[in-house]
């Protein structure tokens, strides 16, 4: 018998289409069946409530079933989706997992392995077990290279989704299975009985093809991916007119990119989402489809701006870190997001970047995203990355890496770029150094990584 409101709801949705992955389609009844199988599997294997289970998987019917069955079982799930073996091992270690469940693609039988935990259960884990609540462990890349393992009360994290209305909606799931944004899309979709399309890869043409084939209405993505979609021309080859909502988050949206997206996909509404692994996704309202300004409008989230940085306190925030001090939280529970924002008079916010990415040119602060937005206005610029480099005269100077659209005369292009910047940027914001790396400027998670490519 289902032991969780979401599992009950999945059972009730019955024959509605649930997942579409390549040629395979499954219904909510299929998902409920898989959950039941995992439920008895976990019981047979004697996985105890409060046990930490590393779930090595990418999106699939089985992976989602396993995750929900773990929640039902009051276990603590640590989803891990990475192709790096070393990273997987270090995440399992930092989570202090005692089970490892591996679901590889195409493999029908899940592999469960018992592992020796590194240390006795963390006090936060004990606390969750006493509450009889399931848990969710997410990771963020720490500056030292060791991933930070943070633990959510999965009961509290999922609760807001129970208010979702049932909708006939087709959603493409783009962000990863172990990412707060990806899980948010998943829970949203499941709670509203949506059809969830899992693309074969995150490559622009593959995604566009899936949107066309399954008449996807909602696409949650990152600005980096949306830029790639435009560069690839996939939106011209495939019919994307079914898209009604495109949500974007995880990094600032350059105004110039939003403008090009609006022109390329005129029927879609562009909505910015906002959240952090630590506080969950907060409900926000965009000022307009063409605006990058948002208002945090969530009964469960409080916010304030301290010295230009956004601070959040939410009902669904993490209990804490398993392997890190709580230095980014104040004693009264405010989370310092590290995101810099500009507030307009009427309560709307513009996210401008990460606090640590601010460039200080002789005392003047430069936000990389502002410069990137101007660079992306130039037709020959396909992608760009702006960062600070040290400079003996001004402390730091602005530098840019550019991926040109057609490699022609790079020196002449450089000159055109600087001249273009001069029209709309103060002199200290103009990149003093412009280079043209040969590799892409984003991570495998389709997010700009602010470390320039060597």
């Amino acid at each position, binding site marked *: 018998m289902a032991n969780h409101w979401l599992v009950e709801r999945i059972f009730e949705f019955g024959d509605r289409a649930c997942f579409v992955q390549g040629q395979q389609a499954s219904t909510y009844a299929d998902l409920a069946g898989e959950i039941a199988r995992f439920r008895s599997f976990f019981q047979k294997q004697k996985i105890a409530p409060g046990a930490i289970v590393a779930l090595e998987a990418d999106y699939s019917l089985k992976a989602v079933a396993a995750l929900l069955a773990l929640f039902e079982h009051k276990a603590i799930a640590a989803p891990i989706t990475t192709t790096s073996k070393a990273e997987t091992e270090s995440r399992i270690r930092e989570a202090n997992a005692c089970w490892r469940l591996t679901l590889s693609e195409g493999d029908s039988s899940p592999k469960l392995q018992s592992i020796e935990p590194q240390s006795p259960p963390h006090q936060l884990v004990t606390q969750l077990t006493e509450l009889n609540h399931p848990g969710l462990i997410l990771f963020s890349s720490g500056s030292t290279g060791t991933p930070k393992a943070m633990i959510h009360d999965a009961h509290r994290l999922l609760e807001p989704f129970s208010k979702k209305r049932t909708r006939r909606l087709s959603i493409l799931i783009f962000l990863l299975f172990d990412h707060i944004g990806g899980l948010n899309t998943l829970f949203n979709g499941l709670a509203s009985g949506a059809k969830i399309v899992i693309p074969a890869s995150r490559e622009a043409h593959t995604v566009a093809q899936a949107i066309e084939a399954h008449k996807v209405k909602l696409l949650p993505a990152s600005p980096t991916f949306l830029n790639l979609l435009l560069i690839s021309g996939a939106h011209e080859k495939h019919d994307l007119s079914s898209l009604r909502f495109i949500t974007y988050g995880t990094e600032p949206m350059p105004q110039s990119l939003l403008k090009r997206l609006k022109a390329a996909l005129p029927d879609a509404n562009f909505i910015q989402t906002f959240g952090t692994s630590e506080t969950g996704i907060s409900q926000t309202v965009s000022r307009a489809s063409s605006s990058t300004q948002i208002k945090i409008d969530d009964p469960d989230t409080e916010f304030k701006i301290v010295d230009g940085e956004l601070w959040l306190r939410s009902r669904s925030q993490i209990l804490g870190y398993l392997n890190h001090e709580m230095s980014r939280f104040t004693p009264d529970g405010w989370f310092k997001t590290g995101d810099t924002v500009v507030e307009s008079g009427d309560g709307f916010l513009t996210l401008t970047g990460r606090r640590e990415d601010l460039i200080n040119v002789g005392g003047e602060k430069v936000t990389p995203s502002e410069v990137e937005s101007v660079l992306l206005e130039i037709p020959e610029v396909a992608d760009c990355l702006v960062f600070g480099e040290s400079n*003996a005269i001004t402390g730091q100077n602005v530098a840019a890496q550019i991926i040109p659209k057609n490699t022609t005369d790079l020196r002449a292009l450089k000159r055109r770029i*600087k001249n273009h910047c001069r029209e709309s940027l103060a002199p200290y914001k103009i990149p003093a150094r412009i280079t043209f790396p040969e590799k892409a400027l984003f991570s495998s998670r389709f997010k700009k990584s602010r470390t320039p490519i060597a």
Partner: protein
Amino acid sequence: MQPDRNAIATIVLNTLHEMGEDLDRPELASADESTRLFGARSPLDSMNLVNFIADVEERLSDDFRIDITLANQSAMSRTHSPFRRASSCIDYIMECITEHKT
């Protein structure tokens, strides 16, 4: 190939001329070795100087595969700044290239 002083002078002056055209500043467009790069009587402000140095470094790298940082702490702390005039800047670059080689 080791560039001679003439080659370096060409790089420095071409960079200044190009900046003059782009910034619409005739005194830079017609710069010569006596042009001041630094200080109150220079046509360059500090941001122009930063850009000028970055451009020169880049040309040295592109044209001669010489990768050096011209604006470093030791250059900035000299009593007589190497960026006083175009001529002293050219001499300073020659000095850096020799040091770089050895």
